Structure formats: C-alpha cells, structure tokens
C-alpha cells in the first residue's frame, strides 16, 4: 500500500472512532446528577422554573431524541450552542483552540530540545557522571505534579525575575509566544524524563550495533556516527513514547491551563463540566478525541518515515 493510501485509510478510521466517542460522551455526561437548568438557576431553581428552562433548551426530550438531534447537527458541522455563554460551540472552540495547540506544540518542541542533547550526552558517556546526572535529575520533573512545577516556574521567572507573564495568553504573536514558554516548559519537564530514558536506551543499543562498528572502522567522525547512525536509528522508539505522551497531554491541558490561566480548550472543558454545559462538553471532547487520534496517526507516520523497514499496511 502506498503512503497516501495508508494515510487515507487511517483518516477514514477517524469516522467510526469519533462516532463511538460521541455516543460515549453524550450518554455519559447525562449520567451526571443534576441538570444544566438546575446548575444555572442554582438554589432558586423551583421545579417550575427548571422545567421551563429544560423546555427552552430541549432537555425535556427523550435522550435518544436529543442524541439524534445532536448527530444531525454534527454532520452539518453544527455542535450546538453553549447553554451558558449563548455562543455557538464551534465559535467557542475556534476561539479557544489556539492556546491549546500552541501549548501542545511548544511542549513538544521543548521536549525534543531537552531530550535529544541530554540523551545523546548520556549515551555517549555511559556510566559516567553525565550519564548519572541525566538519568537522575529529570526524575524531579517526572515526580513533581505539573501544577506544582508550574507554580515554581511562575514564582521564579514571572515574579522574582519578571521575564514572563504570570497569567493569560498575552496580546499579539510575541505576547502569545511569551505566555506559552513557561507552560510549555512545564509540559516538557513532565514528559522529557520518559523520552530521555527511551532515547538513551535506544542509542546505547544502536551505538553498539555492527553497522556502527563498521562506520567507525571506516574512520567516519564520531559526531557523524552518533548523529547519523546512532541517533537516527534510535529515534523511532523515542518518537513512539513522545507520541503517546502528547496524546496523554491533550487531556492534561486542563491542569496546565488552569495554573497559567490560558484560555484554551482545557479550561473551557473544566468550566463547562462544572456548569453541566452539555453542548460544550460534547464539542470539546470530540475535538480532544480528534486531536489524540491525529497525534497517534502522526506518530505512526513519522515512525514509518524514520524506519524504512516499516511498511504502510
């Protein structure tokens, strides 16, 4: 199968996956006690007023009828309207997806920037002080919760040494980029220990393999041996680890966005769950699911590009 055919087939698999997710999300959120009308009206919610709001929002219809309406709108690209913000869900998502995507991208970039040199240094100095440091120090990032790491970074780099903003997404491109540095670093500190370990292990294996011995025998420079032969062949497993963690991170944006007050999909999801704003929860969950599937797809494709032995089937 060609790469294009493989890609198209994987994209086609998105459809049943997303449909299955819509069913899960739709019915699961309706299992939560209480309803949006009660949540909105609070303790003044007399049964009459709740019922009136239910009718206004169509929540008094049978669940299957509501689900059918939801799917009918979905196939027309309509995710409904936020019960609380009175804004189309698609508009809300379009407004809020930017910070989340930038956070994911920034987190990935910083993870790579941290992982590659440290893993290479550790692998080429196996057993030495550098190797020990690289194996131990990143564990701090792994063991500390993201919200704590984020607060510490804010304390140091936004308050004590005010380089970065404490909260928000800034204004303009430069403002956005500046505001994403600390959150992305927080992400990278959490993921990098895993990718460093994976890449280091793979590089150690690669650097003792026969083709590397042959390359050295041909008097190729050590730097070229490490990068061209060691790193290149060690990347695939590390890419898999990175891909899995980015997928995990998509849901984890909730915590990071709360700490750094980023107006992304994670914070939107949190407030919508609290408010029982069903249309928004459903819409954001679909987007998250789509992102995770796309990240996995991207990981597989990148893996196959790196390793010519992998065929597209």
């Amino acid at each position, binding site marked *: 199968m060609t790469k294009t055919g493989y890609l198209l087939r994987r994209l086609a698999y998105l459809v049943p996956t997303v449909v299955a997710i819509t069913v899960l999300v739709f019915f699961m959120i309706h299992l939560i006690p209480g309803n949006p009308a*009660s949540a*909105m009206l609070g*303790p003044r919610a007399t049964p009459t007023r709740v019922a009136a709001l239910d009718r206004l929002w169509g929540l008094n219809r049978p669940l299957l009828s509501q689900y059918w309406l939801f799917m009918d709108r979905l196939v027309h690209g309509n995710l409904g309207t936020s019960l609380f913000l009175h804004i189309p869900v698609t508009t809300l998502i379009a407004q809020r997806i930017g910070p989340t995507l930038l956070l994911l991208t920034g987190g990935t970039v910083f993870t790579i920037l941290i992982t590659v040199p440290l893993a290479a240094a550790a692998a080429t100095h196996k057993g030495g002080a550098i190797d020990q440091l690289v194996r131990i120090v990143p564990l701090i990032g792994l063991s500390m919760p993201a919200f704590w790491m984020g607060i510490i970074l804010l*304390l140091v780099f936004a308050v004590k040494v005010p380089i970065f903003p404490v909260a928000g997404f800034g204004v303009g491109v430069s403002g956005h980029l500046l505001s994403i540095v600390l959150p992305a670093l927080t992400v990278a500190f959490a993921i990098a220990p895993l990718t460093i370990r994976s890449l280091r292990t793979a590089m150690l294996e690669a650097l003792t393999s026969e083709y590397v011995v042959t390359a050295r025998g041909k008097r190729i420079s050590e730097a070229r041996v490490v990068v061209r032969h060691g790193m290149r062949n060690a990347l695939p497993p590390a890419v898999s680890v990175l891909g899995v963690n980015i997928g995990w991170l998509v849901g984890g944006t909730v915590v990071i966005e709360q700490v750094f007050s980023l107006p992304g999909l994670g914070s939107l999801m949190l*407030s919508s769950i609290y408010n029982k704003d069903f249309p928004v929860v459903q819409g954001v969950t679909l987007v998250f699911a789509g992102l995770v599937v796309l990240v996995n797809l991207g990981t597989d494709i990148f893996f196959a590009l790196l390793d010519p032995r992998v065929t597209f089937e």
Partner: protein
Amino acid sequence: MSTKPRNSPRPRLSAMGRQLLGRTAVALLLSTGLIAAWASSSSSSPARTSSAAPVHGGHLVFARIADIETLDPTVAVDNPSIWADEQIYQTLYTVAANGRGTVPWLATGFRVSANKLTWTFTLRSGIEFSNGQPLTSADVKFSIDRARTSKSGLGYIDANIASVSAPSPHTVVIKTVRPWAPLLADLALYVNGIVPNHFGGTSATAFFQHPVATGPFELGTWVHGQSLTLVRNPHYWQPGKPYLDSVEFTVVPNANSRLLTLEGHQAQIVDAPPAPSVASLKSMPGFFAGIFPSTEIVVALPNEHFAPMADVHVREAIAYAINQNAIVKAILLGRGSRANSILPSGVPYYNAANPGIKFNLAKAKSELAASHYPHGFKLTFLSDSDYAEVAEVVQQELAPLGIKVSISTVPSSDLFVEQQQFNYQLSIDNWTMDISDPSEYATYALDGTGGSYSFFTNYNNAHMTSLVEQAATTLNTTQRARLYNELQTFADQQLPQIPLYYAPLIYGASQKVHNFTVTPLGNYPLQNVWLSK
C-alpha cells in the same frame, strides 16, 4: 448569592490531574509552604479608603476566578458576570455601602400610595446613556418588564411587581401584587439594570455585543476566557467619575496564580487569595488584604425526613455540641465569626445581640436526653470537598453525644442536587444574599410552604411561615424590626438549620489602589476607585 458563591466554578481536576495530585502529597505541602513562606502572623488590613485627592486616569487590572458568561443582566447568574455588569448597568436604587438597605440611584425618591400597592418613582434628571441619549421612564419600563418576564436569570425577584408604567418622561409607577417591603431592594438588583427602550432599535443580540447603559463604564473588548476590558463612559452622570480610564477583568482560576499576578504587579486587585497568604499581605510591602463583611452564612442542614432530625431536641443537641468558634479559628484561620442568628450578618434587621446557640456540651447532652434518641444514633453527613474539614470537626464534636457520624463526600456541583432530592440526613451549605433585604433568605430558608422547602430541610412551621410573610409585607420599619427579631429568636428555638459561621469577602490589592470597597452583597463600585502613580 446562592449556595456556593457563583464566583467559584470550583475547578475539578481531570483524571490526569488527579493522578498528578496523587503522585506526590509532598509536592502539595511544598507548594503551600512555598506560597505561605510569605506569611507572617500579623493581622489583616481593613478596607483601604483614602482621604487624598483622587487621581484621574489609569488602567486597573482585576484578576478574578472566572470569566464572565454574559453581558445581559436578565440572564446573568454568576458573580463574575454580575459584578462586571454592575459597572455597565445601573438601577433605580442601589445597595447602600454597608449593605443595610438601599440608596437612590437613577431615581431620586418615591412615594407609596395609601394602600401600599402603588409606588411612584421620580427619575434623576440629566442622566444620559453612554451614547448620549437621555434616560427616560420608557427605558425603565422596558428594562424592568424585560427582567420580570425573563425565563432564566434572577428575574423572579420581580414576582411581586404587577405592572410598570411611564406616565411622564421622569416618572415611573410600579404597582405590586401585595404590599411589598423589599421592593426597593428588588429594584436595586442588577437584573433590573436599565437599558434603552427596545435596545435603541436594535436586536437584543446586537445590543449585547456592545451594550449602551448609564453606568460608569462601557464595554471595551472581551476576549472570551481571558479578559474583559471596560472603558470610561464619557457621559457618566456623577461629576468627575469614574476616575479610572479603564478596568480589565482578567481570568486567573488558580488561587496561587492570582496571588502571583498581584505580587508580579500584573494585577492591582485579586479576589479570593489563598487563605494562608491573607495574613501576610499586610506585611508584604506595597500590598494589603481587603477584608469585607459579607452576607455569607454557612449552615448545617438537618433533613427532617430523617426521623432523628425531625426531633427539635436532637437539632438543639447538635447545635449546642458544635463549637462554632473552634471552626472559625481552625478552618477560617480566624477570619469570620460564629453565626449567632439564622440571618446573615450583613443584612438589614440582623440582630447582632441575638445570643444564638453557643457551644455547651452539657446542654447538648441534656437536649439529647430529652429527645427520642437519648443514646444517640448513626448519622451520615453529606458534604463536598470544600466543607470536608467542617464535616470532620462536626463528626468529632458529635461523638461525645453518642451520635456516630459517617461522612459522605460528593463533588461540589452535585451537593446541592443531592440536597434538592433530599438524599441526605445532615448536610452543609452556604448562602449569600442577592438583595439588601432579609426577606429573600427568610422565604428561602424558613418558609416550608415554598418551593425551597426551607433550604431543602423539610422544616414547616405555620408560625414561622406567618412571621416570614408578615415581615415581608409590612412596610413599617419599626414593625419589621420587631418581626425579624422575633423570627430570629424563634429560629433559635426551632433550628430549621443550624447556623455555623459567617465568612467575609477577601481581596488582595496593591497599595496603589484607593477607595476600593465591597458591599456585603459583593458589589464593588469601581467608579470610586482610583490609582496612585
């Protein structure tokens, strides 16, 4: 506002977030310790008012827990929306600074007919909307009619308004269904904020994209989820005000992050700073903690569908066994006070001299001995994570009576749902007032014939219901005071709920902020605020 102040959509962590939390409790302690490393044990500052001449100009950044949801006052139910909308829209009367009544605002006064059913208001002359158009009675009629017919929001507060008419440009006549003492307090509620008649000829949707009103500020920009910026209304009617050029409400959900925005000079006011940091704000150069009395009352709710709770001696025993001062000291770190009355402390007719139920273990035991359960019983206390510590204290304090308490914890968003469905035996919740009149809470908490079932405790007493009704329909303030005193005394004997404590409103602010005050209802009139250079 209602149970669980709506300024706190208490963020719930995702499954991943809970994993991260669970991974290291040490990190939690470290982070709390780190933030509290600023702490000293000095007492907090009072509200900071200034006698210096106000400085005109400046951009105030106010970091708050959540974003606003709507600019439509007839729909808004969350505190961030309400307190932002109040900078844009104004009402005929407004809440007095001490919360104990109302003062004229867009109206200058009123007179009431002999039968107490017709109120005639005179509008203040010379008031213009932010587009320069003059305010007239037609605008008032349109706005209040819109509020009282709204299906969502707090428009039900106008349920006792029968009609609104505008016989002349500066006269508004409101007829009530029955004599209704809280009318001025109702009209002071943000939901009755005045907008132009028929939105000035545009649709509601278009209008609320950029509302026109008489308040000190008008909408500048709104970046959803991030910030709302209000700019000075050049047509504002109070001479020289507002002092600020603009106010930016930013969204910073995390309490520690909010405090950091203050310390990092990226905000001048923050709401609800972390409790351990409050005492330290006074000692931090350039900052202060504003602690304001509020109408928040926290009560234990005995569900009288559970047989022991239907016994008044059991309720008395529980009330006497709970050491309110210990709860205030341990959980509120001393900020707050024991609740000595069924009424919140910041409302009119609250009786500060009412003794309430004071901790007395011997009395608690004698009350239980007089009940149908002299040897105690098993009890489930329904709580959420916000009141978990209170639940634990109550559990400990009821143990000597032989009342074995087990604590059941539900998510905050579900606590009230469970209470509404009476799925509890003893529970806990809070209340904050919407209006500066006790009738709203009295009806909600003490009238068993209403839809709230006495705060969902199923308490129903004809005499109490009668007191609630009489106090709301008597316009004579002396008689109202007598009735509310009698109500508070009777509530101590009946204990439909068990008052626990009053909690204040707390803000952190820069010392460059002057005249920042907060009424007990939570309103902050930002037209009075100014920033020093």
